[in-house]
């Protein structure tokens, strides 16, 4: 059985307008040196997925720059590999507006593929899990669709944009309901689905023919009534980027070793090679409980923070509880607390910036302060 992937790189990006102003959700930086799509692609590669279609909509230059030919994930192949699927491809004359439209617009691509099984996924999360086990489960259950879910985290997990599934005792999906805090529906959909490629093509053609508009509101409920839809649960760290606050909270959790091991050690996570120089910590550096990527030059104090590649922290600067993106330059004696500084931010010496734990202060890309 050969498996392919299909990734939606733009869905849900309105949830984090700050981070997606200059990029698609799939290329939002996460975890010190990665973009969200790195985790999904690496999970797929670990499960021997050899073809990955990447559906793009807006703002996909940064994503294309990051993924490139796919060689960093071993996905630059003669047959298959990374296939970018921008809008207006195939016979579509319109910019698609829904997931269903998007799949319809790539039907020709799907028909031309030769893989048996397809894993379809959004790209607004970071997690590492054994995808081939999920595929095995799908095959053993002889399902038409396997829905991948995770258990709702008891307190405070943002769920306002999520659906949950209801299953019978044999883990067959019987219903989809909006996820709410206390409705007993604890199996949150990850929006990862496994099915046979030819089944997906037939399902989409059949649903489109009767004028269905939405994949999650129309097609999935229809499929649950008509076909065998099973559920497969995953556990471990799952950073669902549903708001800037959620992004910040999940980033801070990476200072916990069990979280890091769950995300980084269960699957080898590949990313774009940047050939940065090694990170350098000077005589004035105090770096504690923090993640530091290559190319950083640190002369100040860094606590409970995530520094992406090539970040500069000047002498006497104090960075606490913050996430600093690639190539940001924090001047001498600056004080930052609960900040998210986007790529190439320049903070002039002596500035004092602070958000709070539940509302981090966001500094947009290329800002000079």
């Amino acid at each position, binding site marked *: 059985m050969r498996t392919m992937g299909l990734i939606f790189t733009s869905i849900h990006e309105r949830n984090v307008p700050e981070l997606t102003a200059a990029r698609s959700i799939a290329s939002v930086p996460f975890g*010190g040196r990665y973009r969200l799509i790195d985790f999904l692609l690496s999970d797929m590669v670990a499960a021997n997925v050899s073809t990955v279609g990447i559906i793009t909509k807006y703002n996909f230059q940064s994503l294309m720059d990051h993924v490139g030919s796919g060689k960093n994930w071993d996905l630059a192949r003669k047959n298959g590999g990374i296939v970018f699927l921008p809008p207006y491809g195939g016979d579509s004359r319109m910019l698609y507006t829904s997931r269903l439209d998007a799949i319809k617009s790539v039907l020709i691509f799907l028909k031309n593929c030769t893989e048996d099984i397809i894993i379809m996924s959004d790209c607004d999360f970071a997690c590492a899990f054994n995808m081939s086990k999920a595929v095995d489960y799908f095959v053993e259950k002889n399902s038409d669709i396997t829905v991948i879910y995770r258990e709702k985290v008891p307190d405070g997990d943002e769920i306002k944009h999520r659906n949950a599934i209801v299953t019978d005792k044999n883990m067959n999906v019987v219903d989809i309901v909006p996820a709410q805090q206390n409705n007993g529906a604890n199996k949150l959909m990850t929006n990862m689905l496994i099915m046979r490629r030819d089944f997906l093509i037939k399902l989409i053609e059949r649903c489109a023919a009767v004028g269905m508009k939405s994949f999650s509101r129309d097609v999935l409920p229809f499929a649950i009534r008509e076909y065998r839809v099973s559920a497969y649960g995953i556990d471990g760290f799952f950073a669902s980027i549903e708001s800037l606050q959620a992004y910040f909270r999940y980033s801070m959790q990476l200072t916990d070793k069990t979280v890091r091991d769950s995300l980084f050690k269960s699957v080898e996570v590949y990313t774009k090679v940047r050939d940065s120089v090694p990170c350098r910590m000077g005589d004035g550096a105090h770096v504690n409980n923090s993640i530091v990527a290559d190319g950083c030059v640190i002369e100040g104090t860094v606590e409970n923070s995530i520094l992406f590649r090539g970040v500069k922290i000047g002498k006497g600067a104090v960075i606490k509880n913050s996430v600093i993106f690639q190539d940001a330059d924090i001047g001498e004696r600056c004080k930052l607390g609960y900040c998210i500084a986007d790529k190439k931010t320049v903070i002039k010496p002596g500035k004092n910036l602070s958000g709070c734990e539940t509302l981090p202060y966001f500094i947009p890309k290329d800002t000079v302060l």
Partner: protein
Amino acid sequence: MQKKCVAMLLAGGQGTRLYALTTKLAKPAVSFGSKYRIIDFPLSNCANSGIDTVGVLTQYQPMLLNEYLGNGEPWNLDRSHGGLHVLPPYLAKSGGEWYKGTANAIYQNAAFLNAYKAENVLILSGDHIYKMDYSQMLEYHISKNADCTIAVIDVPIEEAPRFGIMSFDDDGRITDFAEKPKKPKSNHASMGIYIFRRDVLLDELSAEERNPDSSFDFGKDVIPSMIKGGRAMYAYKFTGYWKDVGTLRSLWEANMDILSGVLNLSDGFKIFSRNKAYPPSFMGSDARVKNTVMTAGCEVYGDVKNCVLSEGVIIEEGAKVTDSVIMRDTVIGKNSVVSYSVIDEGVQIGAGCKIGGATDAQKDPTLIGRDKHIPDKSVIGAGEVIE
């Protein structure tokens, strides 16, 4: 297609003065500067100089080196025409033999140079750390209409007896060359980087093959005999950072040169390397890290000062590591003290060990060889080598 310049990188040497570091791998594959291996420097120089065809001559322990080089993609050398070629010794219809010396290694691969119709051949070695734009040297070589151009660097006169030392006139034409002279006439040292016209090179190498007393070495045999024979030999002066890392002490020093900034890795002239998938590094709550460089995958919970850490190094709680070079995936156990040491890849140092002594310019650092397991509470003194 004709190539203006093809590089030949001599990477077959054992590097005996690096002791345990080269037990299982060739010297050019030895780790350097946190995320690099020595060979990254000449290969990146090629990439940054527009040289797209490089033959890497291997002989001693080539397995890890070959794996590291792969198709040359990290150095932009995965090309349809040209690119990186690993050139080991081979058997031919009428025999075949090991490479007998640097000159013989090139001679045995004359067919490679002829296949690319290389106008000029750049000879490089895999044991120097430096950044150099070879295209400028090539321009100089062509403008002088030279048969051979040798890169030279001025060294302190007391160190001159370790090098090939030459004299040249105002035009740069070399008048005298002595390999490792006891009484050097100048401090102009050969960097072991040569550009030859291919026809001249192959003539000289086949003449050398017929010389029964030859040791088939560029510095000892080929260059002196070319000067004697009146060939147009020019010196190309280089003034940047350059260091021969053929000894344990010099390898340690070159690593420390990154910390002091003498060797600047972030000046825009990028050194490329093959990257493994490591997560970013993590500094624990009680970590104290000063004047240190590290790359991905490190976890530091103890004290680190004046160190160069490669990928995946773990420094456990209470450990104190100073003035040391720690290579890939090595673990320094709890409360261990490490000073003035070079610890090779994959070493496990137990808890409460004491490794190394005080920094001493007259003594080699302590060395622990690849994949060694050092039991708890071991004491390994200054200058010891654990192989």
